[in-house]
Structures are given as structure tokens and as C-alpha cells.
């Protein structure tokens, strides 16, 4: 679960990190008032609070001037105007897609112009089974390019999950990044805070980018990003409360509520599969047989190892709510669950939801013969429902029917 920049910064500040002052605002007037509190004779930065990255390089769709999601403002009027623009236009960045994303919240942040930018990140290193803290003196927008071209410029330190980053590890990182004197001590404190939030709150990703030395010589968290382990939210009510559903895909939110694992994609063939691996493999085989015809999967949907009628029905509803979908492939391997049960659920779903596009069904496993009888008996009621006996046939059939 992702959170906004301001939420991430507030968590870091509570853990002891030095963060520039900010005020969360929802209206242009609030932005103007915040300017008075924070400008201190200079300016403020107005920053759109959206989960998508690349805000600074983005563009407000349909806005006349060049304006993205981050803007330095030297007057109250300017701050108000910028806030007005952001709150009334969608923001397009390289992470949003062409339709952009609606901005509902801004922060007005005290000026903290960076003289030098660093990168700090913390994430699980699967190969060693513990989190690592990563740091680079080449912070800012191009950190992924640095990682790809100059991996030696990314320092990595394994962190024991029981203790978090140790003080000497933070100290060593700070000096290896080139910090000196009191600035090194401030950087250490920020690293320890990052590790503390990661560990205390079960983050799956934590980034401070940039960690900055400001022109006035302070060391601050200039931007921060956290992603939390959904499986651990049960013990962090405070973090769960930070969820902003406005930032999530509505179909994915809806699927989550039905305990379905759904991801929206660009293609035209909806998929309903049990199991994540089989669901990915089903997408793969649609692509394998469809790509020559420009046909690909419209979604990833794992309805879980044991499909229920309710889950299947909600899955179909979500798939069919996407107007791009021209066909559906159902691929279910009945393990412990009976294929007959699944067939019955399918028929029920078809009757309730209405299958207006071709639906190709491939069932295999437990009680598959019984299932085939059920489906063939329902064929009159569900004219678009086709069955296939193996995966290759099913994939070719759904591609053929919807190309």
C-alpha cells in the first residue's frame, strides 16, 4: 500500500528525521495562507500529492503554461494561482498514462533548495532474505540510470530485521557518501529514521530521493516514498488509515474488496484464472497465440486456489466493466475443488452477469467430466460460452473469436 509524500515525511519526522516544514492544503486559499506561514521572506514549494512519480517533469493536462506537479513560488498570489491550477487539472507524468491523474491534495513546503542530492532506499534483497539499505551520492531523478550504468555508485548494506540499521552502519554509509562533520551526523539520523519506519511499520519499500544538503547547509528529506506490506497492515491501523483509494485503479480497489487479485492491462482478452502462476501463464499463452493478430490480455485476475461462485461472478463483472474486452478466457485447474462446482459457478455467473462477448472455458482436474456435462447443458442459455479441452486450443479459440 502506497502513501503520499507528506504522509511518508510525517512518519520519518516522527522517527527523528529532519524534514522541511510543510502544510497540507486542499484549496487555493489554504495554499495562500500557508505561504504566509512558511515563506519566511523567500518562497515556498507547492507540491501535488499523488502516488505517481515524475511529478516535477509532468504537465497539467490542458493547462496553458508549462506546469507540472511541483512549483517554486515567490509570492502569495503565485502560490494561490499554482494551487488553483493543480487542483483543477489532471497531472500527466511518465507513470500516469495519457489520461493523467486527479490532484486532490497539495503541500506547501518551506523552501529547502538543494545544493547536493543523494539517494537513500530500503527494500528486501530476496537473494539474502533481509532488507538492504541502498545509498548513492548520485541522487535525484536519474538514480535508475546510475544503478544500471554505474552499479558501483550504489552502496548496499544488509540490515538485520531484528535490530534495524545499526548506528555504525549508518555512520559508515554517511562517510562513504561523502558527508562530513555535523552533516554526516544529520544524514546518519535520517538513515536510522528510514530504517526505523521500515521496520516498525512493515514497509516493503522506503525511499528518500533526494536526501539533500540544502544551500543553507542543512540536511533534509526533500522527497520520500513508502510502500507498505499489505500482509502486515492488520497490525498497523495507523498506516492502514493512510490509504487513499482515489489514487488506485477503481477496478483493482473493487477486486481487492472481493479478495480477488486483479491488475488492469491494455489488451482485449479478459482472463479469469485460479492461481497467480497459472494466471500469468494464461496471459502468456494468449499473447503467444495472439500477438501476430494484435491480441493480448486485458487483465491479470487470480480468483484464488478454490474458486467460489461469488468470486467468479464479481470477477466477470469487473472484467466486463472494461469496454476494451472483446473476449474472455476462463482457465481453471480444479485441484481439491471440484471442476463441477466451478462449472456451476460459471453458469450462475453467466446468467446473472450476462456474457455479451465470447467466453472460452478450459477446465481441467477433479471431476472434469461432470463439469463438461453441466456446461453443455447450459449452452442454450449461454450462447457465447465455448469450451476447449486443452489450453492451446482454448487460447487459439479466444484469440480467433475476438480478433
Amino acid at each position, binding site marked *: 500500500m502506497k502513501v503520499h509524500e507528506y504522509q511518508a515525511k510525517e512518519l520519518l519526522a516522527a522517527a527523528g528525521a529532519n524534514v522541511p516544514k510543510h502544510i497540507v492544503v486542499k484549496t487555493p486559499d489554504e495554499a495562500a495562507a500557508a505561504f504566509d506561514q512558511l515563506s519566511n521572506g523567500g518562497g515556498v514549494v507547492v507540491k501535488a500529492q499523488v502516488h505517481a512519480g515524475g511529478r516535477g517533469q509532468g504537465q497539467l493536462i490542458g493547462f496553458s503554461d508549462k506546469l507540472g506537479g511541483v512549483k517554486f513560488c515567490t509570492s502569495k498570489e503565485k502560490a494561490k494561482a499554482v494551487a488553483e491550477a493543480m487542483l483543477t487539472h489532471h497531472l500527466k507524468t511518465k507513470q500516469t498514462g495519457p489520461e493523467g491523474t486527479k490532484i486532490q491534495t497539495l503541500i506547501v513546503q518551506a523552501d529547502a533548495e538543494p545544493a547536493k542530492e543523494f539517494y537513500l532506499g530500503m*527494500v528486501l534483497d530476496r537473494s539474502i532474505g533481509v532488507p538492504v539499505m541502498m545509498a548513492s551520492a548520485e541522487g535525484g531523478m536519474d538514480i535508475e540510470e546510475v544503478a544500471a550504468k554505474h552499479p558501483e555508485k550504489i552502496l548496499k548494506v544488509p540490515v538485520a530485521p531484528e535490530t534495524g540499521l545499526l548506528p555504525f552502519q549508518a555512520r559508515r554509509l554517511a562517510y562513504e557518501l561523502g558527508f562530513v562533520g555535523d552533516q554526516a551526523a544529520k544524514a546518519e539520523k535520517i538513515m536510522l529514521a528510514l530504517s526505523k519506519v521500515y521496520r516498525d511499520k512493515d514497509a516493503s519499500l522506503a525511499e528518500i530521493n533526494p536526501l539533500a544538503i540544502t544551500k543553507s547547509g542543512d540536511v533534509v528529506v526533500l522527497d520520500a*516514498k513508502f510502500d507498505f506490506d499489505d500482509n502486515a497492515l492488520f497490525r498497523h491501523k495507523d498506516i492502514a488509515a493512510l490509504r487513499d483509494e482515489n489514487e488506485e485503479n477503481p477496478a483493482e480497489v473493487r477486486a481487492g474488496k472481493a479478495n480477488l487479485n486483479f491488475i488492469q492491462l491494455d489488451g482485449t482478452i479478459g482472463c479469469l484464472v485460479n492461481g497467480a502462476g497459472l494466471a500469468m501463464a494464461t496471459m502468456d499463452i494468449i499473447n503467444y497465440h495472439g500477438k501476430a493478430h494484435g491480441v493480448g490480455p486485458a487483465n491479470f485476475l487470480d480468483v484464488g486456489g478454490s474458486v467460489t461462485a461469488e468470486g467468479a461472478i464479481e470477477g466477470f463483472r469487473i472484467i466486463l466493466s472494461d469496454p476494451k474486452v472483446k473476449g474472455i478466457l476462463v482457465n481453471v*485447474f480444479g485441484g481439491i475443488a471440484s471442476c463441477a462446482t466451478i462449472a456451476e459457478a460459471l453458469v450462475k455467473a453467466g446468467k446473472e452477469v450476462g456474457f455479451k462477448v465470447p467466453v472460452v472455458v478450459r477446465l481441467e482436474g477433479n471431476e472434469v467430466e461432470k463439469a463438461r456435462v453441466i456446461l453443455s447443458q447450459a449452452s442454450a442459455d449461454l450462447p457465447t460460452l465455448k469450451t476447449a479441452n486443452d489450453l492451446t486450443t482454448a487460447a487459439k479459440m479466444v484469440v480467433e473469436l475476438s480478433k
Partner: protein
Amino acid sequence: MSILVDKSTRIICQGLTGSAGSFHTDQCLLYGSQFVGGVTPKKGGTTWKGEKSGKELPVFNTVSEAVKATGASASMIFVPPVGAADAIMEAADAGIQVIVAITEGIPVLDMAKAKRFLKPKPRTRLIGPNCPGVITPGACKIGIMPGHIHKPCGPGEKGVGVISRSGTLTYEAVFQLTALGLPQTTCVGIGGDPIIGTTQIELLEMFQNDPQTSAILMIGEIGGTAEEQAAVFVSKSVTKPVAAFIAGQTAPPGRRMGHAGAIISGGSGSAKDKIAALERAGIEVAPTPADLGSAVQKAMARKK
């Protein structure tokens, strides 16, 4: 022969009296697995009865008591996520040697700690979590896989060893092998979580050393670099035919977690990278999930 489990393995179920634990223990008993007890705190002293198998098992409050009373050396874990990592540590602490954790949704940092807890106990082997389990067809099933799709090796007959990060995709693979008349020695679902107990390489080594296993099928997924490392291991240390499949070739690369996910793996972990690494190691890679069984046949033919 087989790896990990066989007819003589004595098994308990942690979380036996819960609905999933109860249902699947019953199924395992029907398959012939030698379950000898179960653990559910507060329910120690009661007796559990399988709905279909009709078999009865004693319930204990702790794994330690269960091991003392039954001599169990393996455990199947159905404890809910909040207590699952603790249950894994409890099993290891009580001397259980094969721990099969079925539970899905364990917090990653809980597993990081549990895995470090297991480190100084080299005789304990964890399979999973978030996995279908392990089965030696015809001998011992510990997990949720449908037993009937598997084909046991006949007397003196060799078979295929299966290693998989996925659940239902494994069933698909086994189904295809069986349809082609290829029996299986042992099938291991290693789990899809970021931190798992036993890795591909450890199992490749076990299958390589198992005289009954004549070929290995490895089913991977995008994410991490385990398949790349396994490929290097195969080219150095595995002489038996190996086939593989990587799921997620069309999964969207954009669903990443910020920069850090990409940085930590150095940009690797894509299906393309994995397939290239597997092919470099001389592994037969199935082009689609419909070709899992035939890929094993091709791999065996190549090595002849």
C-alpha cells in the same frame, strides 16, 4: 527413492482444527500420508476426526508436546498469517525436520526473522510458505495439491522431479507429465513469497543426487534472480535433463515498486532475462504453459 518425504514420514498438522487444516489433513490421510497428530493451542487433549477418512488424531497444545508423544519429524502448517512465522519457529525449535508452510500472506519481515531463526539449524528444512506443499506420489502428500493427478513411479521405474514457485501451474505441469506417461519422484512447491525456506538450487542438488530421478522440471516466475542463479548451478552441477518454464512473460513491467525494486536487482528478474539464462545453461524452456510435459520429453531426448 524420492526426496524430502516418503512412506515412513510421520507428520503433524499445525492448525489442525481450523477449517483448511482439517480439510487438507483429511485429504492427505485419504492419500495415504502418515499423519500422527495435530497442534492447536487451547485444544490439547482433544481428538480430531477426519470427515472423510474417519481417522482420529490426538491434538496437542504445542509442537514440543506433539513431537514427544508422536515422534513426528514433519509438519504441515495451516496457521493463519498473524501466527504463521511463529509456528514455523516453534516447529524448528521442537526438532521438526521438514516444515511445510502452506499459509499465504505472512508479513515479509516476519519471514525474514523466521528464516534467520532457522539458519543455525541446518537439519531443519522449510518448504514454503505460500506453497501447495510437497508430494512423493503414491507415498506421502503434505499439502493441498490434488493427489490423483500424480503418477507414482513403478518398482524400479525412474521419474521426473518437479520444482515450482507456483500452485495451480504445478498441477498443470504434473497433469501434462502424467498424461504423457511420465511418473514423478517428488513434486515440491517452493512458494511464491519473496522469502522462502528452500530454494531451487537446494532442490536441484537433491534431485541430482536422487538415483530415481531421471529428469527435472523447474517452473519459475518473474521477480528475483533465483532462476538465473539456478541456471548457473545447473550448468555447473546438474547432469540430468532439465526443462523449465517462466510465467509472467507478458506481465506489465510498470507494476514495480519505485526505484528501489529495480535497483536492488540491477534491472534483472524479467522473464526475458530468466529465459536467456536458462537457455544458456542448456535447459529446455517451454514456450507456453501447454508445453510443460513435452519440454521434459525434449530435454530427455537431448541428453540421450
